[in-house]
């Protein structure tokens, strides 16, 4: 009988759920709101529906991301650092350095055979995160998902000298008012984000292959800027948002199978999906 394992990653802006058996059988991405538990419930329900499973069919559930402690039906909480490493290793086994650009933070992770050897996370500043790009997209009146594509037509990227998101927004407005073209501005913004991320990640003694995950990985302009900073091509998984949730499911699978082999019993949360409660 095939066993199924679920991973749920509650990030600052998106919630992701993945169900694995022998391979990925379902993955769902939904927005994160202040009511993490409720959304976790809904996203997991959707993933189960996609897989044609009931919650009872799932052997073990691991939650990750900033909201990991708010998932009542998770059997275990593991940080996104460990889960990203596990997830990326399963998808791109040659990767030694992960750059994750999320909604509110960015991080660098060094891995060896899927295990974390060191990591860095950004400070409390929004520069170098998806939030920075959201603010600029809003300022320019450009859909977030179009930023990358538009930036590729830049003739000469503008120089955005401020790393502070608020001041950078002012700088973009000022340059816009002096006639700077939008593609040049967006390319300049990508360069500013890439510079910030590179400064963070290079503390890790970066080794290729490098993979980029998180929402930032969906932006081709940012990927191009990062490749310029690292001086080599970077790898992007087919769906860069789900690597944390995938890793969570795989960590759960590994732990369960290890426990099974060694005759141990893993404690489960004992709470079904329907028992999710808000802030209880």
């Amino acid at each position, binding site marked *: 009988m095939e066993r199924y394992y679920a991973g749920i990653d509650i990030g600052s802006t998106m919630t992701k759920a993945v169900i694995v058996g022998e391979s990925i059988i379902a993955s769902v991405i939904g927005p994160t709101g202040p009511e993490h538990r409720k959304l976790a419930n809904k996203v997991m329900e959707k993933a189960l529906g996609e897989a044609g499973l009931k919650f009872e069919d799932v052997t073990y559930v691991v939650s990750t991301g900033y909201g990991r402690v*708010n998932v009542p039906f998770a059997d275990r909480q593991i940080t*996104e650092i*460990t889960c990203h490493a596990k997830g990326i290793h399963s998808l791109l086994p040659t990767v030694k350095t992960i750059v994750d650009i999320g909604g509110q933070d960015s991080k660098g992770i060094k891995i060896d055979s899927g295990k*974390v050897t060191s990591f860095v996370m950004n400070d409390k500043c929004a520069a170098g995160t998806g939030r920075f790009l959201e603010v600029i997209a809003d300022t320019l009146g450009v859909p977030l998902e179009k930023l990358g594509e538009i930036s590729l037509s830049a003739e000469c990227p503008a120089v955005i000298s401020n790393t502070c998101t608020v001041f950078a927004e002012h700088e973009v407005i000022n340059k816009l008012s002096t006639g700077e073209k939008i593609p040049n501005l967006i390319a300049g913004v990508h360069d500013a984000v890439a510079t910030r991320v590179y400064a963070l990640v290079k503390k890790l003694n970066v080794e290729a292959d490098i993979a980029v995950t998180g929402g930032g990985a969906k932006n081709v302009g940012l990927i191009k800027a990062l490749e310029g900073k690292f001086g080599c091509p970077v790898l992007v998984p087919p769906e860069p948002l789900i690597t944390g949730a995938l890793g969570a499911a795989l960590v759960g699978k590994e732990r369960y199978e290890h426990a099974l082999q060694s005759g141990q019993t893993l404690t489960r949360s004992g709470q079904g999906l329907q028992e999710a409660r808000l802030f209880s």
Partner: protein
Amino acid sequence: MAEDKKPRSLATQAAAKIAKFVRGNMSATLKAKEEGKKVAYAYINDGQDEIMRAMDIVPAWGESFAGVCAAKRDAEKYLQKAEADNFSRSLCTYATCTIGFDMWREELNGQTPPDAPWGGMARPDMIIGSAQQLCDPRFKWPQATQHYLQDVPVFVGNMYYPPWDPKRDHHEQEAIYVKYAKAELLELVRFCEKHTGKKMDWDRLAGLVDLTEKTWNLFIDTYELRKAIPTPMDTGDAMNTMVPITFNLATQDAYDYYKGLYDELIQKNEKKQGVIENEKYRLLWGAGLPSWFALGDFQYFNDKGAVFPAEVTYRNAEKLERLDLPATNDPLERIAWRWVRFWTHWYDKARKRPGSSPKVERIIEYIEDYKCDGVVFHSAFSCRSWHAGIIHQAEVLRKIYGDIPILIMEGDIVDISSYNEVDTHNRIDAFIETVDAYKAKRS
């Protein structure tokens, strides 16, 4: 699902006594003023303790006061005061906190600002600084303070030690540095004599040097008891128990304190009584001052099964026999040799390991002696002396010693705006998972 918040607890009774100790040091400065004794602003690890104590000068420690303000999360008003006079937030926040306090007190014509933590410090009669033994901001901090306390005389001495150079034998240079340090200490004696109106009692000074040396030996003997598995005391406590060796050196109180701690740790080891019940991970606090407003993070590590049996920070003493000091009866020369050798005695060992440095060699020794599974650094942004070198130390450690989990935490010593508890705990969680994976791989 969220973990319960637990109050911070201390493993040893000795550590629990420290608040009274610190408060006593601060109130001693206020009492000294009432009794007509001289009070000096003083700075830790300057080699000046015995001289001040021999001259009956009561030290007022800015670093201690700022730490108390931070621990009580009440430093912001002083930081803002200093910032309003254009002191950057990136300057040492020990300095800016106390300068803000000094500014406020001067505005009140010498009265202690209202609600000063634990009554504040007395206005000093003199400022006795020394730079380079520990950190360079202390060249300018006393001078900046004098900008507001213009009638207060300032002495800033220097006690250098030979810089690390793997290609150069420092032994040839040590005597020159000691000669210079001794001259600086003698200059300090003259300064103290001038401003106290008393002559130095050289026999008393020699007795206090004896007492300091005894205290250094006892301190190390005591801390080495933490090698036991489970460890009876970790860094969470050591950030308290460092007070006597740091702020009360050359006093009988300091010696007696460590005798009490020594006895307590012996008893704990006999009963195999560890800091936590199930010690799973042993970590080294590799460098950096802690965030005094977030000492509860040590508890967070403990809750994850991690303990710190050793730390570089505030282990500012060494066994005298290890320093192999030249024989001399001159108390100033003894002080000078002890401090110069405190820093240089790692050099020979570091030279034997290509690519190493004294600071990294010290970390390696503690990793091995205390059987540590990982290293945690704390990069306090305003503490330039340590902040700037931490990444380099971590890189060198990995390169020459091998793969060991390292966590670099970020924050500050005093400025709470640098701190995010959720982020910090998230990093600790991830680090513990990493240490666990390393241990599993090794086993």
